[in-house]
């Protein structure tokens, strides 16, 4: 009998092996012509959801890169975090006759059926963040991204809390499977491998953030009274919004000074918190979603014009803190004043 965890691992492995086993450029015809090369292209982009800042920035970047390319028209769709909607959008893209697809969908389990549609039509696909069999992968290196944040938090604790901590709160997202799990594991490893005195196993609290600020506020508000003696609390979070919920809960409990938080994303809401005086948000690993499009669109044009493209393209992550935020986001309206000082 096969267990659920084994089944999931097997499926993920199938997806990744599938992704690695296909050619990563358009198929060149026998006469040397590239049959998919054209003067202009219509590319479908199915976004994960339009309800969160991260994915809105991805979409804006893709639209910006397409405009910059000059010969790319983007057809938009919203997968609404739903597999059935993603499949319907894939069918719609095929009906609309797109030349290629950028797919940002919710779960690798839907990858097979969606990709089978595109493969049948010979439509090349770049998959963002969730590997899909036969698609070029573009996205986060989740474990490394987590590691960067964990290392930064450990370095801070070594310097300010004598290399130790009384508790580690892990604000995770178990329902979304192995991708965010790799991110969380990276953060935990980054702390435990670098902290002078690693946090005791029994002082590590795994909390389901449900990916929302409200829920992270609630679960941290619930846990703090159960650790009244913990005066040095580290927290790692799945994204900026969840980090803000953690900080708000600690401050509401009058324990703001006892916590230090790192997160993932460094989106504008996170940046705003990072630059506050005396902020308890040390920083977040940057994913630079606004720049995704500027790597994806040229890669897609390369695929369509039969030039080789790497099977997996990873984001270059950086840990963003108050010290270096101006290097990356100094020109944005949000940080103009802070960075001018």
């Amino acid at each position, binding site marked *: 009998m096969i267990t659920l965890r084994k089944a999931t691992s097997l499926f993920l492995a199938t997806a990744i092996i599938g992704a690695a086993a296909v050619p990563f450029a358009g198929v060149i015809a026998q006469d040397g012509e590239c049959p998919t090369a054209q003067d202009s292209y219509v590319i479908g982009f199915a976004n994960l959801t339009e309800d969160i800042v991260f994915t809105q920035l991805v979409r804006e970047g893709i639209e910006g890169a397409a405009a910059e390319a000059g010969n790319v028209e983007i057809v938009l769709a919203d997968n609404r975090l739903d597999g059935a909607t993603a499949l319907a959008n894939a069918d719609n893209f095929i009906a*609309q006759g797109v030349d290629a697809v950028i797919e940002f969908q919710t779960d690798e389990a839907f990858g*097979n059926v969606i990709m089978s549609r595109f493969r049948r039509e010979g439509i090349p696909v770049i998959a963002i963040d969730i590997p899909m069999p036969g698609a070029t992968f573009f996205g986060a290196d989740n474990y490394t991204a987590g590691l960067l944040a964990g290392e930064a938090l450990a370095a801070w604790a070594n310097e300010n809390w004598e290399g130790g901590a009384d508790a580690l709160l892990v604000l995770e997202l178990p*329902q979304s499977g192995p991708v965010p799990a790799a991110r969380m594991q990276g953060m935990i490893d980054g702390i435990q491998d670098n902290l002078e005195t690693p946090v005791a196993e029994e002082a590590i609290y795994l909390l389901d953030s449900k990916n929302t600020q409200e829920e992270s506020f609630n679960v941290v508000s619930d846990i703090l009274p159960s650790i009244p003696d913990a005066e040095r609390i580290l927290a790692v979070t799945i994204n900026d919004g969840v980090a803000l919920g953690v900080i708000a809960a600690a401050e509401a409990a009058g324990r703001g000074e006892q916590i230090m938080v790192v997160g993932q994303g460094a989106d504008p809401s996170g940046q705003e918190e990072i630059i506050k005086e005396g902020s308890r948000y040390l920083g977040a690993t940057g994913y630079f979603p606004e720049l995704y499009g500027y790597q994806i669109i040229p890669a897609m044009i390369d695929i369509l014009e039969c030039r080789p493209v790497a099977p997996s393209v990873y984001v270059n992550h950086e840990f963003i803190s108050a010290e270096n935020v101006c290097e990356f986001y100094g020109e944005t309206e949000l940080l103009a004043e802070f960075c001018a000082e």
Partner: protein
Amino acid sequence: MNNRLRTRGLQEAASLIVMLLLIIFVMSQLTDVFFTARNLRNMMLEVSTVGIIAVFTTMLMISGGLDLSVAANLALAGVIIGRFQADWGILQAALAAVGVSTLIGALNGFLVTYVGINPLITTIGMLSAARGIALVVADGLTLPVFDLTGEATDAYTLFHQLGEGEIAGVPLPIVIMVVLLIIGMLVMQFTTYGRALYAIGGNADASRLAGLSVRRYRMIAYTLTGFSAGIAAVLLTARLYAADPKAAPSIELTVITAVVLGGVSLAGGKGTLFGTVLGVLILTTLLNGLRLQSTSTELQNIAQGLVLLLAVGLDQIRTRNINWLKWLRTTRALPAGQPASNGGN
């Protein structure tokens, strides 16, 4: 049904058909893709999940009931298939999923009709419970549904045919939806059960005094709505090769919007399955057309929300038989001397 009611029903159906044709015309002018065979097929496949649930929700709402738990029920049925396929076999897991959904429908019916809890409260509670159980059963994950061991290929082929197979070029989910629709129409038109649902929805007390078992009929309607969620779950899971505990988000609102738009009264006692078909088609056509235009999600949500408000507004007008001329006069929009017709009645 007397002539006046029949005439009004025809007028309502005609106005829905005009609305549908208008949307089709506008969308076909906006994009060449709209009328392609491929897009029409996609659209009908999208209709199938909503349509199957809408058939039975129509019958339930005509009886005066309401079920907001269908999406969560569907998600739970899906993960039962995903979770137990290896232990029980895929076809047995699918049957069990339909059974569980039917039981949830029956439990809703029992709580509403025998315990007397408000349908809104009952089904919101069930929504929350079923979604939570789905997440627990699936361990929070989307479960792949295919032959992981390679030992039951035929059963899986049969199962996935339910979602992907075709009969004479028509996708099987659509065929199943149409069959259920026709059965539903025959039941509502020609059986005691169908007539009883109208009577109960129109006036439950009078129906009870007339000897109808109001509780039993409503209980059956809730049970069948649960059954429809199970059937929809099987077809969706078969098509997606995966079961998601968060599946079908907000589908209950889409179903209710379509059903009410089609002329079923929120107060019960009125409406037809033909109207529901038109409601589903209007909503799906509108959303499909907007998607083909790359319209933003916000605008799609606004459009769906406005259609829901329009549907409920029309329902209120129909239910209250508003005499518009009288209303305008009382609000001083018309001079007092102009006679008020009996148009609303």
